[in-house]
């Protein structure tokens, strides 16, 4: 891919947490537009990669967004450059109402995005006054995704296992929401549900034990059971 197509680039990113060397020289590019999948077995460092991009995990090496170096910035500055985050455990503010959770994420230009999120998740409008801690897991995921979508300046969304633990109907709703979200921002998606990943993703990056072991087209990986099993483990065989 040519340099102009690259939105996010990692070069030799290392993350140490305590004594553990969690990410070991991770390098990859995320293409502008569409959804790129970040896949791999449990505990290989997918979440740590996203946290490292944001600066929530201390990292060395280089992370650039449209050519701008992010590693010297603090977390809120990275986000202000246009990086949205939908964390693995949703991290809604449980004691705040749905409306307050959304209001925290508001920026200039959020008015139009409210139309989008209420179209994707009409439930949130009805539950505006409800404390986010009392929502179901699926509804919390809707709040978390909406927070990232409300910021119209976001150029890339880092979305970590958005369908984890959700009922099939909600998985479909979230999948559709991601498809729509990809029309307004690039998405780097961590997804263990391989059928969801296959349906959404174009480029794939696979991590194993803190290193990148595969980058390429999703069909190349998924349509070759032996390759998929080697990179993604048994789940690949089941999920496909």
């Amino acid at each position, binding site marked *: 891919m040519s340099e102009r197509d690259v939105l996010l680039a990692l070069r030799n990113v290392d993350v140490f947490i305590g004594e553990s060397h969690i990410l070991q020289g991770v390098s990859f590019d995320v293409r502008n537009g569409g959804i790129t999948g970040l896949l791999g077995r449990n505990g290989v460092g997918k979440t740590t990669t996203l946290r490292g991009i944001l600066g*929530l995990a201390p990292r060395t090496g280089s992370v650039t967004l449209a050519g701008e170096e992010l590693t010297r910035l603090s977390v*809120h500055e990275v*986000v202000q450059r246009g990086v949205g985050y939908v*964390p693995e455990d949703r991290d809604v503010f449980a004691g705040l109402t749905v409306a307050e959770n959304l209001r925290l*994420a508001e920026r200039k230009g959020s008015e139009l995005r409210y139309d989008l999120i209420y179209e994707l998740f009409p439930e949130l409008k009805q539950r505006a006054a409800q404390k986010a801690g009392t929502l179901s897991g699926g509804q919390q995921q809707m709040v978390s995704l909406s927070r990232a979508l409300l910021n119209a300046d976001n150029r890339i969304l880092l979305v970590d296992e958005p369908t984890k633990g959700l009922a099939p109907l909600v998985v479909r709703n979230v999948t559709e929401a991601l498809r729509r979200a990809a029309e307004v921002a690039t998405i780097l998606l961590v997804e263990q549900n391989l059928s969801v990943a296959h349906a959404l993703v174009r480029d794939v990056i696979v991590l194993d034990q803190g290193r990148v072991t595969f980058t390429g087209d999703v069909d190349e990986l998924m349509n070759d059971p032996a390759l998929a099993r080697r990179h993604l483990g048994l789940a690949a065989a089941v999920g496909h």
Partner: protein
Amino acid sequence: MSTTVLLLITGLGLGALYFLIAAGLSLIWGLMRVLNLAHGAFFTVAAYLGWSASLALSGTSPWVQWGVSVVVAVIAGGVFATLTEVVLIRPLYARPVGQVLVTVGVALAAVALIEGGYGGDPKQLTLPAWLTGTTAILGANIPNTRWVAIFAAALVLALLLFFLQRTRYGLIVRAGVENRSMVEALGIDVQRAFTLVFAIGGMAAGLSGVLAAAYYGTIDPVRGTSMLIFAFIVIVIGGLGSVAGSALAAVIVGVLQQFLNFYAAAGVGDFAVVLLLAVVLLVRPGGLTGATST
């Protein structure tokens, strides 16, 4: 009956002074996980600067003198707290032990400097005649200083709840008490909220300092330290991070202390408060309210 009423209102007044210290402490802990041992120094330094301002105006009306001392104390508390956060605490971000040590250093240095500059003897603040008088209610003659403390604390409580519930920074503080890094991950500079919370906490502590001068009749260099200890008990009982919880716990602690110190023996009330703390920690480790900043 009149004794009960007197003890109750006096206890509420004491609780009011505790609350004014505890509210800031609790928010600072909730948001930043900093145990701010310098908070008693904000109380003390503000009271002394208020006293100096009042002295400089001697000859004018006592109402003017007292009014100015209150304003000066509130501003002094706010400025001192802001400087403490910006100059000493911020550079030690992510080094909690260093932060605690720095706040201890501020506390010790402030007391030493005050003793050096003003001497160790108690100082008397010039008060308007009304403030030194009493108001009879249900047969009890209640010192007016108690009413003033209670009124001030109620006002501060209302303002703080308004701030937390109705303003954007209040929203950031409430969210930050729950999950600071997620607030940053929404692109919000939480550091600014820290500074604001320190400033507000320092102002409230300064107000407590100058009101305590009226409540107790004098100012001395070490009262801030003992008040701080009870304020810590209050915030733990109330639930760290909760302003409303601090208010409730401050009332319970102040009233309990007054009644037991009177009916049992002096000192028993103080001891009972510590016992109450232990019981609350055993039964409800999160304090009366859990930890939500409402």
